[in-house]
């Protein structure tokens, strides 16, 4: 307790020092903050790098239409200060300088210090390799060179030359070098306890400002490097990964496309070059090694994990709400918690149905809140954890967050799994696992039939292909309206061969063409539903027809990519190689369209073989008998949710899935 107080005190001091540039006020300064309005735009644009964030905020405390935006391209002299003012619509956007070179140091130091809160474990982990002090900084330097297009947009100091005067690269090297030493020092005695603090990944998101790098990825790379040195090819995964790497390097990268990373910054390749592909293959390989290392060392502490889940979940809601009410807190959330995307500035939902609040994705936030509630229930039910007075209000806040995200899938799954848990525990001796599985599957099928009953079979089975056709570049010389009319006519006539092979040869993506071939087989097996029809009906059931239709129209892999994918976290070929013409309102055309299914993401990354392998290992995991069988509900909950969301593109959900696997498989569980 005393040590915790000391850590809190130390952290408070660090935090206030770090806050200083944003607060700084000089009474002798001739440049004072002015009310933000039409007449002061010129003033703020001509007095850049003089007025601090807090000065302008307090001068305009009661003005509502001001937003604060992180301006990464500004120099060090502008850190924490206003670098410009623009008017967009009725809102004023105040840009605040947050140079990535200095922010990297500040955020990294702050987040490393946060790790001091993790309880020390009795098991001291022997020897981390000193080689990482050299290799990991060089790896990050390699990223800066290979993703030069991304970094040259973000940092004015960016320079990829190899010279002793290149302070940019030297700063990156030294910063990572210091981080490695700090992390070694901190993790040496805490690595086995790290697992219990994974819930905080949703609160402290850890994406460095102006970097395509995440703090947790850095930690896992470090652990992964040590695992690689200790285990090497003895870890089966590494052999398979090496085999896949050969094919990933054969995938297309000749097109120098660029993805600005948007809300998945920190865990996606921005460029489509061979070097950036190599970087991401190395990093993800190390991350998986790091997870394996963590898995081996982890010691689950159920009561501690419960507290952390509740605290993280409720704080995420609280900070989301605070960010929605105060533009200053919104900016601070972005900077100090390392958000991928600035939080929401209102309580209004997007398109009337979701509120993402603190998180970059409403879906993954909903999944997390659902996970917190479900795990609390399971821990109480099976592990008989003690009830604490604060559990109830925290649970209430988490449930409020779940309600705001309006994640229907998460809520309904939560309800089903809770009921199933109670039911199964009562009748476990009378009902076999197989019967339970059959009952649950039958329930889902009957439920789906009831929901989809109002539609006719042809509509249900072909709607997904129809939607994909509407977004494809068919009839390129015709307007969208005529394209829709012709596509509709041919779908109504069931003449898909004419649509794709005769009237639009080579215009549809290879995925759409393949699915059409599967949908219209020469030989049909009676009573066995067509797989495309099943996917199509499912997409209607879970409201994913449009998103999956866009995915099918966009994804056009060649033969190698079909079987082995494009490589881990490589979205460029999917996003940009296939020419499409979206049938959407003008305002939505330039939006980012991710596949909206983690299975589809896997298909892009690992191809058919990679996806089948992962499905195989998942089934094996479910079939395996473990000491904590009931925690498989947590894995099931996440996996079903992942089927309809892009959650594997975010660090938090991936770590949450890892946590649920460790919970299920690990025997050494510390309990009250």
């Amino acid at each position, binding site marked *: 307790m005393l040590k915790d107080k000391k850590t809190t005190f130390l952290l408070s001091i660090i935090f206030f020092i770090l806050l200083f540039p944003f607060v700084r006020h000089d009474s002798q300064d001739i440049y004072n903050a002015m009310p933000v309005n039409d007449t002061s735009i010129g003033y703020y644009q001509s007095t850049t790098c003089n007025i601090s964030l807090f000065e302008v905020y307090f001068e305009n405390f009661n003005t509502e239409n001001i937003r604060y935006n992180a301006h990464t391209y500004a120099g*060090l002299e502008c850190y924490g200060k206003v670098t410009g003012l623009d008017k967009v619509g009725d809102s004023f956007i105040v840009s605040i300088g947050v140079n990535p*070179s200095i922010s990297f140091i500040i955020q990294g130091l702050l987040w490393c210090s946060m790790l001091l809160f993790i309880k020390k474990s009795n098991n001291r982990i022997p020897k981390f390799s000193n080689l990482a002090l050299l290799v990991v900084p060089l790896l990050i330097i390699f990223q800066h060179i290979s993703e030069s297009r991304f970094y040259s947009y973000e940092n004015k100091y960016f320079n990829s030359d190899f010279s002793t005067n290149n302070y940019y690269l030297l*700063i990156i090297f030294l910063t990572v070098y*210091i981080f490695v*030493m*700090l992390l*070694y020092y901190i993790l040496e005695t805490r690595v086995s306890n790290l697992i219990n603090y994974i819930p905080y990944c949703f609160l402290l998101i850890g994406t460095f400002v102006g970097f395509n790098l995440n703090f947790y990825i850095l930690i896992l790379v470090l652990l992964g490097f040590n695992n690689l040195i200790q285990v090497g090819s003895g870890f089966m995964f590494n052999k398979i990964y090496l085999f896949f790497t050969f094919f990933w390097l054969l995938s297309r990268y000749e097109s120098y496309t660029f993805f600005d990373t948007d809300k998945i910054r920190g865990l996606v390749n921005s460029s489509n070059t061979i070097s950036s592909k190599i970087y991401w293959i190395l990093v993800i390989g190390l991350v998986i090694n790091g997870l394996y290392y963590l898995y081996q060392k982890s010691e689950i502490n159920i009561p501690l994990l419960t507290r952390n889940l509740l605290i993280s979940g409720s704080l995420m809601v609280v900070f989301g709400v605070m960010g929605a009410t105060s533009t200053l807190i919104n900016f601070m959330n972005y900077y100090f918690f390392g958000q991928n995307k600035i939080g929401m500035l209102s309580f209004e939902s997007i398109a009337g149905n979701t509120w993402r609040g603190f998180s970059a994705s409403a879906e993954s936030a909903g999944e997390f809140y659902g996970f917190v509630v479900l795990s609390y229930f399971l821990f109480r039910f099976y592990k008989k954890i003690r009830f604490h007075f604060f559990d109830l209000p925290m649970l209430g806040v988490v449930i409020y967050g779940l309600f705001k995200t309006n994640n229907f899938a998460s809520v309904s799954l939560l309800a089903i799994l809770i009921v199933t848990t109670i039911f199964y525990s009562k009748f476990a001796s009378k009902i076999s696992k197989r019967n339970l599985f059959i009952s649950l599957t039958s329930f889902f099928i009957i439920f789906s039939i009831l929901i989809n009953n109002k539609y006719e079979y042809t509509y249900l089975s072909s709607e997904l292909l129809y939607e994909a056709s509407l977004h494809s570049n068919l009839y390129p010389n015709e307007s969208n309206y005529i394209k829709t009319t012709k596509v509709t006519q041919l779908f109504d006539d069931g003449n898909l061969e004419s649509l794709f092979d005769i009237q639009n040869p080579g215009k549809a993506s290879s995925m759409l063409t393949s699915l059409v071939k599967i949908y219209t087989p020469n030989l049909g097996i009676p009573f066995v539903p067509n797989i495309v029809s099943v996917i199509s009906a499912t997409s209607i059931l879970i409201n994913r027809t449009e998103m999956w239709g866009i995915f099918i129209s966009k994804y056009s892999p060649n033969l190698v990519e079909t079987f082995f994918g494009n490589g881990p976290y490589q979205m460029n070929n999917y996003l940009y190689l296939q020419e499409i013409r979206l049938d959407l309102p003008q305002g939505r055309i330039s939006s980012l369209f991710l596949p909206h299914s983690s299975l589809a993401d896997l298909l892009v990354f690992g191809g058919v073989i990679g996806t089948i392998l992962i499905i195989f290992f998942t089934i094996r995991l479910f079939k395996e008998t473990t000491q904590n069988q009931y925690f498989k509900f947590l894995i099931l909950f996440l996996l079903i949710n992942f089927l309809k969301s892009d959650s594997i593109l975010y660090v938090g959900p991936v770590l949450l899935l890892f946590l649920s696997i460790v919970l299920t498989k690990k025997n050494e569980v510390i309990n009250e």
Partner: protein
Amino acid sequence: MNELISKVENSCGVAPEGVLYFDPGNDPNFVFTNDPTFETVTLYDIEGNVANMNSWFECAHYVNGGWSSAQIINFQGDKFLFLALLVVASVTSIIYFMNKKNVKR
């Protein structure tokens, strides 16, 4: 406001007779008319971009938008930061390796 007027005069000179500055706003059709009597002035922005001004009005508008005739010599922030980091890294290394040695013993 006086601050701004003096900034404009420093970069663009005194306003020619009959020319009054007004904010053209965000009108996309607004065109700056060249003034043949105005000696071209080069302005720089904070990112080092360069623009040549062909009239006092244009120049005043740019100065209001944050440009200046004085080329801002970049603050060598990266160099400063590097030197600071070098010191920190050296000290941390000494502590780190000494600590490792002690643990071994």
